[in-house]
């Protein structure tokens, strides 16, 4: 039989367990990272440090499943009511789909948003991330401006002493390379309708000419017609003279088969292991995308930004949202964390001061190939905001770019057909 003393002890223990459990529950949240081990390592470390400083929180970090796609994983989790409190790996096009489905929290309505933006020095960078209702639903974490690599060692052998900047100059250099059995560029994706590939071959060049003119605004095509046709014509000219190869040569740029290639900052960690001879400033240089000669004076000089950020999911409990928001604010309040991010992932954090902040100086000095990326962040335009992003870029491929590269349509006709197909999607 229980004595009074034992009963009291039991009640006390039970109460203690309940109180502790409730406290942990109140400050618990699940955060999904991209299915990329370096990003998972970073967020796990951040959660560990945050909880060491704030033991009342319980932030659990998991990588999101990649199959069949990270987008599908998020959608099914939301549909099943099992979405985390927050996740990263959201690009603005998918963000638009989630926004239209009322699945996201407007971050600028949360306490501490302005302070976070100021602390992370991203007042300029955040502007391109506003949604049609004026709110911000994605906090951009990293932005990969797409730059073009030139094999300067091969250019030197070809007798070219200046890196080409215009389409016309590039064609001249490509002809010289062709005589030596080299391709200007090797890009099998130019024959494939895979929607996201257009970010790296079409939008890089398009943004260089058109600048801030959005490709789609609301349900309307607002693209700069002349810029689109210029880009199509450039590819048509290159393909016609067989200066580019649409068949595969593995790592063609690093294996001396091509002299020009679009490059993101994620390329270099792999090169350091596989192609140590690829040294920035010695074998290759990085430039902004080229432009046509007739736009030399008025081109915007922008490029495409492969940028992703984090969101908070509306269906999470208020307690979980608050906990994860506190965690996020803590992470981005300190530039040292962005440095840790860059060291772990090689992906440039979205900050206006990345190139000048002394916190990053030492790292950038050790990785000089990332300096051009840091410097071009301000000129990197994220993807257009529309929930039909995949369909739009697929028909841009099927009706526009691919027939142009194959020589079955003129650039003007291809753009006319692509526009008609895109309008069909926008008016669906």
């Amino acid at each position: 039989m229980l004595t009074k003393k034992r009963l009291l002890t039991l009640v006390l223990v039970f109460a203690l367990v309940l109180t502790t459990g409730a406290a942990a529950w109140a400050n618990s949240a699940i955060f999904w990272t991209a299915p990329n081990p370096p990003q998972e390592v970073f967020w796990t470390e951040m959660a560990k440090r945050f909880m060491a400083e704030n033991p009342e929180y319980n932030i659990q970090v998991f990588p999101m499943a990649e199959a069949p796609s990270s987008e599908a994983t998020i959608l099914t989790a939301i549909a099943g009511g099992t979405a985390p409190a927050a996740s990263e790996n959201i690009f603005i096009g998918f963000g638009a789909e989630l926004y239209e489905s009322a699945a996201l929290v407007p971050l600028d309505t949360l306490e501490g948003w302005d302070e976070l933006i100021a602390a992370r020095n991203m007042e300029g960078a955040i502007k391109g991330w506003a949604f049609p209702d004026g709110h911000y639903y994605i906090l951009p974490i990293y932005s990969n401006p797409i730059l073009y690599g030139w094999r300067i060692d091969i250019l030197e052998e070809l007798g070219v002493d200046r890196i080409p900047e215009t389409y016309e100059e590039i064609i001249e250099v490509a002809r010289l390379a062709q005589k030596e059995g080299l391709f200007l560029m090797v890009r099998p994706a130019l024959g494939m309708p895979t929607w996201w590939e257009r970010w790296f071959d079409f939008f890089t060049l398009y943004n260089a000419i058109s600048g801030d003119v959005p490709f789609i605004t609301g349900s309307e095509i607002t693209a700069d017609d002349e810029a689109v046709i210029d880009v199509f014509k450039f590819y048509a000219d290159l393909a016609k003279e067989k200066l580019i190869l649409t068949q595969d040569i593995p790592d063609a740029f690093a294996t001396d088969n091509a002299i020009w290639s679009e490059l993101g900052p994620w390329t270099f960690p792999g090169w350091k292991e596989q192609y140590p001879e690829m040294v920035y400033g010695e074998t290759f240089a990085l430039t902004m995308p080229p432009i046509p000669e007739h736009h030399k004076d008025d081109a915007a000089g922008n490029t495409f930004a492969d940028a992703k950020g984090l969101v908070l999911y509306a269906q999470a409990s208020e307690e979980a949202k608050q906990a994860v928001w506190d965690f996020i604010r803590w992470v981005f309040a300190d530039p040292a964390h962005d440095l840790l991010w860059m060291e772990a992932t090689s992906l440039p954090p979205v900050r206006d001061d990345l190139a000048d902040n002394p916190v990053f100086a030492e790292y950038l000095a050790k990785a000089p190939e990332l300096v051009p990326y840091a410097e071009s962040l301000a000129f990197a335009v994220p993807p257009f905001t529309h929930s039909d992003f995949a369909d739009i870029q697929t028909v841009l491929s099927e009706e526009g770019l691919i027939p142009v590269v194959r020589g079955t349509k003129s650039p003007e006709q291809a753009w006319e057909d692509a526009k008609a197909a895109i309008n069909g999607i926008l008016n669906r």
Partner: protein
Amino acid sequence: MKRLSRGEGVTGWLFTIPYLAYTIIFFVLPFLWGLLLLVSEWNLISPVREFVGLGNLLEALQSRRVHAAALTPFKIMALFLPAVLIMSLGIAVLINSFKKRQGLLAVAFFLPYLASGVSMSLVVKGVVSYTSPVNKVISNIIGFVPDWLGTPSLAILVIALMIAWRFSGYYALIFLSGLQSIPGELYEAAQIDGAGRIKSFFKITLPQLYPALYSVIILAVGLMFGVFTEPYMLTGGGPNLATHTWYLEIYYQAFSTLRAGYASSIALYNAIAVFIVVGIVRRIMQAWGRAHGWED
């Protein structure tokens, strides 16, 4: 007929329930959910689920991408079916001719079937890459490097042969068991009557292999309507939708454009196409079997 006792009935149900539950959970409910989806324009999470009636089915009927996806299985089949039959039958005859170590040989040929489609696609991608040794040899002979994945007919050929390579070992096992069940007396009798090896093959082996042939052909035809990994990895459905398959289109609509309802309508057409084509092939095979003395 004798009625089952109560105890026997309960036992029967107990044995049946797991299968029934499995069927209901993994087939019936998803099918009903798919039917519900196909009359909606919905991304699975939006609070607004628009009822579109037969809109998705009609849209799919008019889609160039769906037309391409409907045609591709037949294009692949035209190359795949003869290739896989010749290869698997050849492997089976080869293994059967060995007196020892048949199991080891069968496993060796079966291995490609166990390999993942992704890793096999990467191997094939290397083989057809512009600077591969194979292409260097071809280039020396014909003077240029064929654009294997950029030319519609060649891309289909590559995919068909790749799938044939993967499945020939598996189908060879079915043929092998068929070959081993043919009584040796039939060949002896044919030999006495003066039949040669070729005549024996066509007059005895092939007709006697009818059950195995029937299984292999039905499996192979059904397989053509579910091709995904190879074109996804190698061509993305291109060039110009030449290798675009049913599953690529369903995947694209469900997971890239996030149109679950529209993807369901395409999946329904896919199921109908499989049903019709397999039905026709079944009838043809049964007619051939009857002509050679087999009963349905």
